[in-house]
């Protein structure tokens, strides 16, 4: 994903009813964009995996 610019951040928050002071989006942008990181496991992740698949992984690796 591309980094979010300040106008996009302002629009996203406004659409959700969150008031944002003037200049706040500029301060938020670096932190928000720092979370959008490339992950080496992403490409190999099977299509069928979803957020609940984590519980299956827990069962696989917990002490027997």
């Amino acid at each position, binding site marked *: *994903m591309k980094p*979010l610019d300040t106008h996009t*951040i302002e629009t*996203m*928050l406004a659409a*959700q*009813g*969150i*008031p*944002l002071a003037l200049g*706040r989006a500029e*301060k*938020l942008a670096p*932190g*928000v964009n*720092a*979370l*959008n*990181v490339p*992950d080496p*496991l*992403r490409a190999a*992740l099977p299509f069928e*995996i*979803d*957020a609940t*698949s*984590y*519980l*299956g*992984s*827990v*069962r*696989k*690796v*917990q*002490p027997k």
Partner: protein
Amino acid sequence: MSGLTLEEARRRIERWQPRINAFVSTEPRSKGSGGPLAGKVLAHKDMFYRRGRVSNCGSRIRKAWMAAETAAVLERLDAAGALDIGTLNMSEFAYGPTGHNDHWGDCCNPWNPEYITGGSSSGSGAAVAAGLVVAALGSDTGGSVRLPASACGVTGLKTTWGRVSRHGAMPLSHSLDTIGPLARSAEDCALIYGVIAGRDPRDPVTAHAPGDAPVDAPLRSIALSSRWIRENAHAEVADAVLAAARAFQTVEVEPPPFDLLSAHCLTVMQAEASAQHAQWMRERPQDYSSAVRARLEAGFAIPAPQYLEALRLRGAWLERFCNETLAKADAYLVPTIAVPLPTREQTGPRGGPDMPRLLGEVTRLTRWVNYLGVPALSLPCGFDLRGLPIGLQLVARPFAEATLLSAGRAFQRATDWHRREPKW
């Protein structure tokens, strides 16, 4: 566990409270009776609800809010006979890593009140360190048990996600929230953990926990990334942690990608916390501190697919950690906080442009553990030249708390860092 009496605790609180501001309320909340914790003097972070009593959650928004039911963990401690002598300071809505609080006053480090306690379970770390209680519950969503444990020189257990019921505890991020004890020693943490752990139908996540704690088997070895620690931790921290590692049989491994996993953790935490607080953020944003409001604002700018993709990747990273990092070891050893503790001023509202970097350094090694959902035990392992505590953490497979507590007990039989107390 120490035989601290109620009268002695009250005398100590009177002496220490003006210096460290660990307590929010000192009104007794349960009387205690017979049981494995009979008469043990405890107090807990001000976010565990008790029917008919106030839980402020470190906030203005919930100031004087009265709970309609009692947290599962408090029910269990009550049934075990523990005394609950009050509520402890915390970061606002458990959403801050330092112990600052604009509404209830900062909690201060008992070793030197100019320095942070770590957060968000700031009062729990400070009260145990100062000997005001023998143990306290905290919550850990991104490091909130381990950071104050390390900064205050006590032992703290971050439990596996789903090991301890969160029913009746203030939520922050449902995929990451956990509850655990802070106490002087691993032995004391084990006593509290043994009481609070277990399934609870009111928190469906606990349904996936094994029925019984795993057998307390002898340790194989501890995995360690010495070179990474030498190159990334402050020299005093690296020296203390690597010296402590010599108490174990160790095996060198490549470090997990802390920063990547930490970014995923923050993605999940911020998206979920902002959803949890959405109504108040729309209706009364002025009632949050500027720091917490800024964190909550950021969560509204995280796209839903980015949040869900972080959760899709979570299982794969957990399997990699267990199958590769822990392939030949029972736990992974790393500093809890890799840098010297900053002051409250450096990391507070007047902290200046360097503050985000400092906060990032303080939390760098805790959030990845919450993303994986695994347990970790923070143990005191030394002091820096300023006389402030240094901590290490042991991180294990899901539901391997017994392994961690066993390793912690062994370490603390051979060392006395956990017995040192701040003087005042």
